[in-house]
């Protein structure tokens, strides 16, 4: 799952470095992801994993690291 998340981040996160070199717990905002890029990442994750994040999961914290994104997706039943 985390490799797919990294691909989405590379395509939509507008990070100045490849997501492949980021630790799972690295803060994506500190790494350069903007607020709008996080929205684009969220939309792309929904498309990639065929899920829809409920409103209560659409927080800044939920998208701050690969770990936190994976945790949110796991909650939605993605394995």
């Amino acid at each position, binding site marked *: 799952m985390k490799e797919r998340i990294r691909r989405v981040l590379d395509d*939509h996160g*507008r990070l100045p470095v490849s997501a492949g070199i980021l630790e799972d717990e690295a803060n994506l905002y500190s790494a350069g992801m*903007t*607020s*709008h*890029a996080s*929205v*684009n990442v969220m*939309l*792309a994750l*929904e*498309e990639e994993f065929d899920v*829809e994040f409920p*409103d209560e999961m*659409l*927080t*800044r*914290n939920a998208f701050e690291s690969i770990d936190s994104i994976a945790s949110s997706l796991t909650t939605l039943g993605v394995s």
Partner: protein
Amino acid sequence: MALYLIAPSIALVGAGAVLAARARFRLRRIDPVRIGVDIVEVRDVASALASPRAERYLRLVYGAGERRDCSSPGFGVEPSRLAARFAAKEAVRKAIGGAALEAPWTSIQVERGPGGEPLVRLAGPAAAAARELGLRRFAVSLSHEPGYAAAMVVATR
């Protein structure tokens, strides 16, 4: 005996009042004005609008009035105008800080005033976070350049 019991109580109430007054004064002194600024690349908005989830993006981030204000006949919704509104929302979040950083995008909206000037309208968690700080007035300025949109917000009590 009764005097011994009442006197410390009066002293405690008095001390509490003094501390509360000091806290109010400190809050006023430190935060008479708060500012927020943000810049958005228009291509990020265009990318969201081109995605299969464009409709979800529009409804998740922008209110009906904002979507209407950013549309024009023949052109549909304009990415640069949406980008300016997104920048304004983020600037408001930064100006308030704290819980507002997690506020839903639609709880911060930019409307048009009688003279066409942009006005900030808050609801839900964003409004609650602003109330907590006593912030009642928000002035916003939007700017466009090809490729970028920016906003600055000044929040006052």
